[in-house]
Each structure stands twice: as C-alpha cells, then as structure tokens.
C-alpha cells in the first residue's frame, strides 16, 4: 500500500515531573494507531506517529511544536499535559494554523478553533461531584488547591457550585506547586471543621498531602476533580490514606464496563508494565478515533474541512469510559462522568455515574467557534466579551 | 659511615610540562642539618615539594633510608617520619591553634606524651593562643605554629622551607637553637631552605647551593663561616 500516511505529532512529557501521568498517554496513542493501521488506516492511509519527549519543559513544547508543524508537516498534533505547556504551544499552532488535540482534564476556558480538547472540564466534574458530596457528607467545604491557574480557577468553580447547592465554604487554601510539606495546612483544616475537603492538588510533590493527612489522622472525606484520575494516588500510597476520596473522572482503569475491560485488556497486552491506565490515557486513545472519524468524514486532513464536520455537531465516539461527542461551539467534548470512590483498602467503587455531561460553560458564556475564533482562554471571572 | 637518610640522584621535577629541577643530587645522613640556598625562583621550594611527594619526580630517584620512595604519595612518605613545613606557612586557617597541633600529631596514630608541652615550651605564644583560629594569628605567629605543628608528629627528618620568614629576630635565633638542640638530643635530621645568613650559620652543618634547578656547589661547615662566600653564592 503506498497511500501517503497521515502524520500525527505526539508531544508528551516522557520524562521530568509530569512523566508519571503522561507516559500512559503516549502508549494509548500508540495503541490506537496500531489498531487503526491494522484495520486499514484512516481512509486507507496509514497513521504515522511523530513523537518527541517534551521533558516536562515548556520550551521543548515550543521547539517541537514548530518542528512537527513546519518540518515534519504533521496533519494534527496531540500535545501537552500541563496547561502551561498548552499555552506555550498554542501561539505556534495558531501561527501555522495547525490542529492540536489537548487530551487532558484541565481548568477549562480555551476557546480556540485550532484546538480540540478531549479532557474533562470543571463544569462537567464539579456540577456532578459537589451536590453528591454535600448531600452525603454535609454542607461545609474546605478547598486546598494548587496555587496556579488550574487550582485557582477550579476553586472558583467549587465556590460557585457549593453556593448554588446550599453549601458553605469554611476555608480555602492555595498551595504553591512543588510544596511537599503540609503540617500547617492539616492544622488549618482541622481548625475550620469542614464536612469534606476538596483537594485540587497537582504534581507529584503535592500528592504527599494524602500521606501526611492520613498520618495526622485527619479522617475527612475528600473530593477531587484531578486526583486519582491522573496520578493514581490510591495506588501509590498505603491504605487508608485515601479512604473516602471521591473523584469525578471520565475514566479510570477500574471502570467496570465491557468497553473499559476490553480497553484495559488490549492496553495491558501491549504494555504489560503500565503502572496505571488513567483518564488522560483513555482520552488520548479516544482522541485518535475522533480524529479518524473527522478525517474520514471530511475526506481530508484540511482544518477547514474538518471544522465543517465538527460544525455538524454529531461527531461522537465510544471511548473506554463512555460516549464522547465534540461540542461545535467550544470544540470540547461531552463525557460520561463516573464517580470514583476510594475505599478503606484503596479499591475503587463507583456509587454513581452521569451520562452525556456537556462542556456547557464556554458555549453559554459566549464562545462560539463556528462564528469567530478569539484564540483565548477564558475563565468565569474573565468571560468572553458580551457581544461575542 | 651511617647510611644516607635521604638521597636523590639525577632528580628531575617541575610543574606539568615545565621542568624546574634538572638532575639534583643531594644526600643527607642521619643526624645532619643541611641547608639549601639559592636565589629566588631557582627551584628550592620545588625540590622540597618533590622530596615530600607533593610534586611527582619526573626522572631520577629519591631514597629514604635506602628505600626508594618515588612512587609513594606524600602521606606515605610523611609516615616514614618526614615532616614538612611549607613556604608561606599554610596553617589550617579555620581551625584553632590547638587543633592545628593535633593534626600534626595525628600522623603517628598514637598519643606522643609530652609533645604538646614540649612545643608549648618552645613557642609559648601557641599555648597562650591555643583556642584562637589559626588564620587570625599574625604572620610570625603562624610560622611558629607551622614549625610547632610538624614537631608534634615526632619526625626523624624535617624539611623546612624558609623557616625564618616573617619571624622576629630573637625567635629566629631560638628556632635555630631548638633545631640544634633536637638534633643533638634526638638525632633529628633537618633539611632547610633559607636566605637568612645568621640562621644558616647558626644551624647548618653543610650547605647545598642551587641555581637554575641544579646543585652548583656544596659547602662545608668551614665554608659557612665565611659570610662573604655565602653572599657570593646568593648573588646574581
């Protein structure tokens, strides 16, 4: 077969601080590509991956985003774990009018026609999680969050949704990235006497919180949009330090559906040493299939053609965690949200799940990529200009 | 005739690619005090450093008590009983005077009883300032410490590089006396580089003259009594 391959750039952190959560994403993309190629490729064209290790370093994203777009001339790029890395490469994607998939749960708000986001966003995770927690544990909430965009914006979402659901914020604390010592924070939480703690901790250093809170016998239920689903803390720390952690995820390897089981099986067959198959691995995997569908329907890898397909509003795939559909206004994706509950022995059970949860906020706030492309990241406190 | 304690033959040495010593032959017998004189920069210090092993010898050989030591590192040679006082004192600046002396003693691995008292007796200032940091001592005080430090190890041969430098005249005299006294009492051998003619005459039994990396003359005790002769060797 001599059909010209479709090239997919893969810029993920295979070393450095984020490697823990992102190596699996690369493997998932490799798995999907292998499957697709085995089944005849995309429209008969084989999928070729162009991979670079971005080393958890923003400047590498800048270097390699230019490289994949200009030198390797890839058709699409799958790139980035941290939001900072995404913001680092976004101007370059825009400059070359490329197409990038950001396959990661994040703080939300990117309204950019050159981006497709397959990760879950706060409205999907908190509108489901917080009412459940308030109902089951009580109205007093304490948030500890990483002190940067993700944490601050997520905390804002928590504040708003807690208020909407009749809860009270009894405390909020922001932790600089890289902090690994939490004695004072634990004491502050005890002083505030919340019913549960929302943990929005990011990076491997901050994960030490769980062990330290456990050792101090804090004993409070926890809720999170980011932990468990990305950094599989329940696998890394000794029970029962994550006891009664509730996380809304669009996927984790424990999800007990046939699709999930099949995915885990295929994944482990190819990568038997994978420590954990996290949410972002699943999103990356599904993203390849989304892209396949887009190209096949557009009969082209041209961005304008692909976006015409997106505008039709019915681009969906069945991912390992459930159905995912692209929202044409924001080019974000709807998800099945699973509530993962970590038990005393750190096994995971799923008390409930919510289907087809939409990434509604950007669209409601005024982002409509079918009309205009501001290429900005918005937040609830910095929404798109009213006139659109 | 006692066997030479220290003997070099056709010794060459220097710094990296730069040769300084060009075939130095000296021998020092047990119980001798030998001076080395010469103008600035002719290689006296280089010779001393090569003898103790801080610089590698490039050719020729060095024997101590008949044993060839060229391959030995400096600390091995020191343990054969050779003490060395470098030019410019080099005390351990951030350690106290007493600690400096203790390092000097540690070479023997055992407590040499009475050594400390002996050194304090020779250099009373060291006792007075036992707990002052050596780096803050005056120049001459440091020089006394450097000599006291080497005596703590009870060496059988000491190499002194300009021991009188920076020392007040009466203490120069007493250092010479001390060396002579130790030589008589314990058979300590001394090789010293010196410019101070009074000190050379007060201490030395023999004398080598160095020039441009070579031994150019060997003076006897009798020659040493002739001040002008020494002067002539030291002049350009």
């Amino acid at each position, binding site marked *: 077969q001599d059909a010209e391959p479709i090239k997919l750039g893969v810029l993920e952190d295979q070393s450095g601080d984020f490697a823990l959560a992102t190596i699996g994403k690369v493997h998932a993309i490799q798995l999907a590509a292998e499957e697709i190629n085995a089944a005849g490729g995309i429209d008969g064209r084989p999928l070729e991956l162009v991979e670079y290790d971005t080393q958890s370093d923003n400047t590498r994203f800048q270097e390699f985003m230019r490289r994949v777009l200009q030198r390797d001339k890839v058709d699409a790029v799958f790139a980035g774990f941290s939001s900072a890395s995404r913001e680092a490469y976004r101007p370059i994607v825009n400059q070359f009018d490329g197409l990038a998939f950001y396959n990661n749960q994040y703080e939300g708000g990117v309204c950019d026609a050159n981006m497709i986001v397959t990760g879950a966003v706060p409205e999907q995770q908190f509108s489901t999680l917080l009412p459940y927690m308030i109902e089951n544990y009580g109205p007093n909430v304490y948030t500890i969050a990483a002190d940067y965009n993700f944490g601050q914006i997520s905390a804002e979402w928590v504040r708003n949704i807690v208020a909407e659901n009749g809860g009270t914020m009894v405390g909020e604390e922001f932790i600089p990235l890289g902090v690994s010592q939490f004695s004072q924070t634990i004491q502050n939480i005890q002083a505030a006497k919340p019913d549960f703690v929302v943990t929005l901790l990011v990076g491997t250093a901050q994960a030490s919180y769980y062990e330290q809170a456990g050792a101090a016998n804090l004993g409070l239920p926890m809720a999170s949009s980011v932990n468990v689903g990305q950094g599989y803390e329940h*696998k890394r720390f000794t029970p029962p330090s994550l006891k009664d952690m509730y996380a809304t995820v669009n996927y984790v390897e424990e999800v007990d559906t046939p699709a999930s089981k099949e995915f885990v099986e295929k994944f482990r067959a190819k990568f038997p040493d994978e420590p954990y198959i996290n949410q972002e691995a699943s999103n990356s995997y599904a993203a390849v299939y989304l892209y396949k569908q887009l190209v096949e329907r557009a009969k082209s890898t041209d961005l304008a053609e692909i976006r015409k397909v997106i505008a039709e509003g019915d681009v969906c795939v069945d991912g390992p965690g459930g159905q995912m559909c692209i929202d044409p206004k924001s080019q974000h994706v709807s998800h099945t949200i699973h509530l993962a509950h970590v038990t005393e022995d750190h096994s995971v059970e799923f008390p409930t799940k919510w289907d087809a949860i939409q990434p509604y906020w950007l669209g409601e706030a005024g982002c409509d990529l079918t009309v205009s492309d501001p290429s900005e990241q918005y937040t609830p406190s910095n929404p798109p200009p009213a006139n659109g | 005739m006692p066997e030479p304690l220290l003997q070099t033959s056709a010794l060459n040495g220097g710094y990296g690619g730069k040769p300084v010593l060009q075939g130095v032959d000296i021998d020092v017998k047990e119980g001798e005090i030998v001076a080395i004189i010469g103008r600035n920069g002719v290689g006296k210090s280089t010779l001393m450093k090569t003898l103790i092993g801080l610089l590698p010898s490039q050719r020729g050989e060095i024997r101590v008590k008949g044993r060839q030591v060229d391959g030995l590192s400096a600390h091995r040679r020191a343990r054969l009983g050779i003490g060395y006082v470098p030019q410019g004192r080099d005390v351990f600046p951030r350690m106290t005077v007493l600690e400096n002396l203790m390092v000097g003693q540690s070479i023997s691995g055992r407590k040499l009883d009475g050594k400390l008292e002996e050194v304090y007796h020779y250099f009373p200032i060291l006792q007075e300032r036992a707990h002052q940091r050596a780096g803050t001592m005056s120049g001459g005080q440091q020089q006394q410490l450097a000599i006291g430090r080497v005596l703590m190890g009870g060496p059988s041969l000491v190499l002194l590089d300009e021991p009188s430098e920076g020392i007040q005249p009466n203490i120069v005299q007493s250092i010479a006396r001390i060396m002579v006294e130790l030589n008589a009492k314990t058979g300590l051998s001394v090789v010293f580089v010196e410019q101070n003619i009074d000190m050379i005459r007060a201490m030395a039994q023999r004398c080598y003259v160095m020039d441009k990396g070579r031994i150019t003359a060997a003076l006897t005790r009798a020659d040493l009594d002739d001040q002008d002769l020494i002067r002539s060797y030291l002049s350009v």
Partner: protein
Amino acid sequence: MDIFNLIFSFLYQFGDAFAFLVLSACGLAVIFGMMGVINLAHGEFIMCGAYVSTSAVHAGLPLPLAIIAGAVAAGIAGMIVELVVIRPLYQRPLDTIVATWGISMIVTQGTLIVLGPSMQGVGTPFGSFTMGGYSYSIYRVILMIAAIGTLALLWLMFTRTRFGLLSRATIQVPHVAEAMGVNTNLIYSLTFGLGAALAGLAGGLYAPTMTLVPTMGASFMVEAFVTVVVGGADIFLGTAPAAAILGIIKAALTGWQGQLAGQIGLLIAVIIVIRILPRGISGKILKERA
C-alpha cells in the same frame, strides 16, 4: 482554644519546619558548606535514600533499619560519585555545578527508566495523637528528634573525633594535610560519603511521608541550599541557628498567611538575612568571638 494549645501548635509547626530544614540541609552542609562542592545532585542522594529504605521495608526490614540502609546506600553512592567525578574537581569548585547537574539528570532519568515513574510508599508509622482538638502525626515528632540528634552527632563527629579533625584539615589545606601524613583521598571520600549518607538519611526519614518519584529530591533543594548558605561557612555554628530562624519565619508566615507566604517569605528572609550578615550567621558569630 486556650493559650497552651496555641503555643503547642506553633511549636509543633516550628519543629516541623525546623526538622525539614535541618534534615534537608545537613548533608549539603558537609558537601557544600564544608567541602565547597556545589552539589546540585543533593536531591538525588535524598531520593536514593528514600528509594532504598522504602524498598528495604517492602523487603521486610523494620523501618529504622531500612532508614539506616537508605543512608548507607546513599553514602556508598556518594563515595563512588566522589571517586569518579568529584575528585578531580576540588580545585575548581565552580565546575562541580555542571558535573553534579549532569549526575542529577542521569540519576533522575535513570531511575525513571529502570524503576518506573513512581514507587509504592510504605505508609507513615506510629499513628497520631490529639491535643486541644487537633490531631498530630507522631512520626513528625520523631522527625524533629531525629533532626536534633543528627545535628548533635555531627557536631560530636567533627569536633571530637580524629576523623573530624583530619577532615577539616584536609578540606582547608589539602596539600599540607597530605604532607602531615593524612590520606587525603580517603578523607575526601569518607567526608563526601558522609554528606551523601546524611542526605540519604533525610530521604529515608521522609520517605514514609512523601510521594516517591524520581524527581522527589527537587522539593528539598531550595530549602537545603538556603539553610546552608544562611548558616555561613561554619556549618556547626551556622546550620542549626539558620534552620531555627528560617523555621520560625516559615512556620509563622505559613500559619498566618498560608503556604505561598511561607514560601516567598522564606526566600525574602534569606535575602534580608544575607544582606544584614553578608558572611552568613556563622560568619557573624565567629567575628564576634574572635
């Protein structure tokens, strides 16, 4: 809350910060403060101690022994690094920045490749105690005791033993020490090994309380360097008071304004302290005493 509990909680927080600063810094105080090697791989020795002690617990060793095993392993690793890389560099200490940076990259990435992105922890032992409505981890009290014990042991070792004497002499004027019969290569190796072992000890002690990842050492680095430098040239006079001052500032600011204030406050405190004492705390003490 009554005043006693308030004081206790502050003391606990202070002790916690103090212990972290001291244990982070001790190994660096020897390797950097004393030997002048700017060791950017300090965090990797800590990581080594943490990984080895954790593995030892997994293999069935009791925790205290495992921690010692971690320290010993880091110490041996340190001696090897000293022999192969550091030894030629004593006369050009600034080049140790590059060499140790390289070592740090090798070790971090090597660990990632060989052992994977993380290691399963062992859990914090000893449980907790309650005081005035707050519960505290007992193990962290043990960390405080360990910090003080380490300082005391180090002080004894360097001022009261022959090794300490010769080690200081060697580092101050190596060629003279050599000429005084000191096997300076051995001393360098042992001293560096000791510094690495202290780093490993910190790693072993904190391993049960932290995420075990190849990059974990990074979270000790800033605190370690800052403490050693604020302490100044004399590590025994400097490290403890430096850790105490910085610990109070950090605990107070963190308690009052949160973690960001604690972090930034620590750094600003460093800038101010050095401006007031340009030779560090021990420089000041020594000048007064001399």
